[in-house]
């Protein structure tokens, strides 16, 4: 492990051992649904409340990842997890069932990558052999938290994003596997002084652009280095702004996609601008991207997870919405 440039890290010995994904019904019925391991047919996941449903999602994602990796819960040295709720309840309530050290993380929708960066540091420094990085989000819990009751007849503008229901778990390990975590760039909080709470994609785009530029500068590479550059949940509105900002800085590339655009079938499903939430990046990363890397269809992927650090109270106090973005590079190391 060494620090590269201003705020990037290079890893030599961190592997993505196994990963698991669990989703709600809408994600399963979309085009990348076949890469999702397990899904529920209803949002409630046969639980009484939405919050309990999200805890269940995260819990099952963890157990499923253990099962796939053929590990026992004692083998896991540390759980790193995060979600969007107040006091990251889904994460802490999931962890109470296991006798494993736990660190709760909050990076809004960037938690999927943030947890992998934090976990990779523990793996690289040989403190733990296996670390579980978990994230989850749930449509109904975040509607409650950040917006209106789901039955309320308000009109959502086309820039609104739809929170993904789902949870993903990535098991990082010192044990060699097909996928290696090689690089990471830790983002800075960027506030573009944007105040529209119904347009989080655009609010996050500057943070993502800053992180991408920082990553290119730190490693002295350009976009051709990667097979795919993937942003977290900028959705349609945000990804246009993201590309435009980079164009202003003279960075142009075409191997780009956004998890928020990939996760739903936007022609058929009523999801407005696209998907968002911790689960969005997590489901794509642990499902589709992991599959592509382990079958060598992609070799080197840069994933920039973006988070809008929005708080409804501060938004009502006329504060703008700061954004953050963290990047990691996943490489296929299969012979």
């Amino acid at each position, binding site marked *: 492990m060494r620090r590269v440039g201003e705020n990037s890290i290079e890893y030599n010995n961190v592997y993505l051992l196994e990963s698991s994904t669990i989703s709600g019904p809408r994600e399963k019925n979309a085009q990348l649904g076949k890469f999702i391991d397990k899904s529920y047919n209803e*949002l*409630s996941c046969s639980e009484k409340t*939405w919050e309990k449903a999200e805890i269940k999602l995260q819990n099952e994602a963890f157990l499923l990842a253990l099962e796939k990796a053929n590990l026992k819960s004692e083998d896991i040295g540390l759980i790193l997890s995060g979600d969007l709720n107040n006091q990251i309840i889904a994460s802490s309530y999931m962890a109470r069932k296991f006798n494993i050290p736990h660190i709760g993380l909050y990076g809004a929708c960037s938690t999927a990558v943030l947890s992998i960066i934090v976990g990779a540091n523990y793996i690289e420094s040989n403190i733990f052999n296996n670390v579980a990085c978990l994230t989850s989000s749930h*449509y*109904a819990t975040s*509607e409650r938290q950040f917006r209106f*009751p*789901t*039955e309320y007849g*308000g*009109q959502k503008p086309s820039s609104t994003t739809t929170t993904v229901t789902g949870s993903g778990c990535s098991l990082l390990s010192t044990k060699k596997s097909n996928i290696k975590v090689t690089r990471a760039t830790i983002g800075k909080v960027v506030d573009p002084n944007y105040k*529209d709470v119904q347009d989080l994609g655009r609010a996050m785009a500057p943070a993502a652009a800053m992180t991408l530029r920082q990553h290119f500068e730190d490693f002295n590479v350009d976009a051709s280095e990667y097979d795919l550059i993937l942003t977290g949940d900028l959705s349609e509105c945000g990804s246009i702004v993201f590309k435009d900002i980079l164009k202003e800085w003279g960075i142009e590339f075409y191997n780009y996609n956004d998890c928020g655009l990939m996760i739903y079938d936007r022609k058929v499903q009523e999801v407005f601008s696209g998907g968002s939430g911790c689960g969005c990046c997590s489901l794509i990363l642990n499902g589709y991207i992991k599959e592509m890397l382990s079958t060598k269809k992609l070799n080197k992927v840069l994933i920039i997870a973006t988070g809008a650090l929005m708080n409804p109270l501060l938004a009502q106090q006329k504060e703008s919405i700061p954004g953050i973005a963290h990047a990691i590079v996943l490489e296929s190391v299969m012979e």
Partner: protein
Amino acid sequence: MTIVFAFLIGGLICFIAQLLLDGLKLQNVHITVLFVFLGSLLECFNLYDRLIEISGAGALLPICSFGHSMTESAVNYALNGNYFDIFKGVFASTSSGISFAIFISFICSLIFKPKG
């Protein structure tokens, strides 16, 4: 004839609300609060009563009629008694709507589950 005006006036009120909502990028609550206040204001010179005469439900159903009937009954109570009856009159005519809405919402919350 009032049927046609009901459609036109009721529609027009919603049209203006939507224009303000989208044009000024406000939240729903800003618009409803504004319209209740406007309805209350139109009680002056009995303007809103004339609107109800012309369009019937077109002026009764939009939320401005809420502000109007509250103000109307407040003034009537005060005129028929003393000034302090204004506080009694505020809810006099809208209380039936409010309590019915509370009751039905409560029943609905017992029957239905949140869909998500």
